[in-house]
C-alpha cells in the first residue's frame, strides 16, 4: 500500500528543486527568476531547466518582461500546478500516516 502511494507520487514534483520552486510559487502571486535562484540556491542553467519542465507540464507560467529597461523573468503557479502540489502534499501526509500506523501495528 505504502509502495503504491510512493509510485503514484507526481514525478514532475518529486525532485527537491521542483518541489522548492512550487513551494515558493504556491505562497506568492508571482516571483522573479532572481528570487527563486537566491531562495533555492542553484545556478541559472539548472533553474531554467527545472522551470521549463514545470512550464511544459502546465504547472507554472513564465513571463518575460522588461522592468526599467532590464529583462526580467516572472513565474507564477497555474491552477493545475496548485492542484498537483496540493495532491502531492496530501500523498506525503498519507505516506507518513501509513508508516505511523504500520509502526503501531508492529
Amino acid at each position, binding site marked *: 500500500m505504502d509502495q503504491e502511494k510512493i509510485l503514484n507520487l507526481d514525478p514532475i514534483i518529486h525532485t527537491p528543486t521542483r518541489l522548492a520552486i512550487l*513551494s515558493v510559487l504556491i505562497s506568492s502571486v508571482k516571483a522573479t527568476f532572481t528570487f527563486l535562484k537566491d*531562495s533555492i540556491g542553484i545556478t541559472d542553467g539548472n533553474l531554467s531547466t527545472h522551470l521549463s519542465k514545470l512550464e511544459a507540464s502546465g504547472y507554472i507560467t513564465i513571463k518575460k518582461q522588461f522592468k526599467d529597461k532590464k529583462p526580467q523573468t516572472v513565474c507564477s503557479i497555474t491552477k493545475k500546478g496548485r492542484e498537483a502540489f496540493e495532491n502531492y*502534499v496530501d500523498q*506525503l501526509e498519507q505516506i507518513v500516516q501509513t508508516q505511523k500506523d504500520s509502526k503501531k501495528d508492529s
Partner: protein
Amino acid sequence: MNNQQIQQELSIIKSMIQKTRRETAESGHFFIAIGISSIVTVFIVNLLERTELHYLIIPFLTIVLIVNGIIGFLTVGNRSKKQRVESYPKTICYSIWFACSVPTVMILFLFPLLKLYTWELTPIFISLIMGIAIFATGVIFESRFITLSSIAWWLGAVGLAFIENIPRMWIMITIICIGWVIPGILLNKRYRERS
C-alpha cells in the same frame, strides 16, 4: 521512500514558504508615514479653525491629499521596482486600502461640496472607514493588536460625534496614534525580526 526522505521534502516546503514570507513581510513604514502626516494635518486644520482662517482649510487639505498621493504613488512604484516576489496578503491589503481611500476622498471633498452634510462630520465618517481598513489589515497580517485597534477608530467616531473644539483634536490624534502609528511600529518590529 523512507520517513527521513519525507521529512526532508516537508522541510523543503516549510523552508521555502518561510523564505517567501520573510521577503514579503510588511515594513509598517506606510502606516507610520501616514500616521505622522495625519497628525500634522489635524494640528494645522485645528490651528486654521482657531485663527478663523476657515477658507484655507479646503485648499490646505487638497494640497495634503495631492502631496500624499504623489508620495504614495512614488513609494509604491519604488517598492514594485525592488519587489522580487509578490504575496497574496500584500496584494489584498493594498487593494483594501485603495478601496477605502476612494470613499475617503469622496467623504472629505465631494459630499461636503455638494452640501450633503457639514465639514464637521467628515472625521466621523473617515474614522468608520479607517476602522474597516485597519481591521482587515490586522486579520491579513495576523496581528491581534492591529485588528483590535480598529475598535479605537469606531469608538473614536462615536466620541467625535459628541465632542467639539480642542478635545476633538486630541481624540483624533489619539485615534491616529492607536490606529496607525502603533500598528506601523508593531509591523516594523515584526519585519525586523523576520529579516
